[in-house]
């Protein structure tokens, strides 16, 4: 199966890229493996407990993507800086099941194994 990797750097709400990524990933999951690498501010996206008054819960959208099979990984340096701590297996109390905090070294591995790479950022 071919693989698509999406790289994000913005947090939720502040830009529309989490939403666009969600649409691209949904379309891709029908036929392809999807990786999403959360870099810089994007490590905020999967946080549990988001209660936006006027927008869709972007954390929930990414929890859905993980359930549907997307491999979602957050950069450990960026996550730790922003207060998201990983357990030994990369899971985090702050993140939904399946979304893990991982090393930046996973990024080139994802890219290498991909047939398409899309970076979305301001």
């Amino acid at each position, binding site marked *: 199966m071919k693989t698509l990797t999406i*790289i994000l*750097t913005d947090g939720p709400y502040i830009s529309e890229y989490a939403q666009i990524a969600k649409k691209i990933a949904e379309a891709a999951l029908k036929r392809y493996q999807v990786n999403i690498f959360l*870099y*810089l501010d994007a490590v905020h996206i999967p946080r549990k407990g988001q209660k936006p008054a006027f927008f869709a819960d972007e954390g929930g959208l990414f929890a859905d993507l993980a359930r549907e099979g997307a491999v979602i990984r957050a950069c450990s*340096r*960026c996550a730790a800086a922003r207060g998201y701590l990983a357990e030994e297996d990369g899971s985090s109390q702050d993140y939904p099941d399946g979304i893990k905090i991982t090393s*930046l*070294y996973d*990024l*080139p*591995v994802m*890219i*290498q194994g*991909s047939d398409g*790479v899309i*970076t979305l*950022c301001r």
Partner: protein
Amino acid sequence: MRSVFYLLDTAPYGSEKAFGLLNAAAVSLGKMEVTVGLYGDGAYLALGDQDSRALAIPNLADILRAYGEMKVIVHEPSVVERGLFSEGLVETVELVDEEAFLEAMEGSDCLITL
């Protein structure tokens, strides 16, 4: 993907993007062919005499120097527009004209812009 072009078009220090891009490029070395392209305000990263000790954050010019094997090209028109042409630039960085810069982008399997 066998080659990746990391495009930096924002100034260093003002945002985390330059630092993040250099880290991503550094961990890609040896796995893929890596080119870092400095364009627009990204050209400021090439200034040679950076000293970030008083800000207590990493010196980005030193990161460029530490990865001397990393291919870093700078878009010459961006350098000229910003008055950087007569400034001392980091030695490991290669000035290229617009044609060569765009060709390097086209010649890589994928483009990553942070």
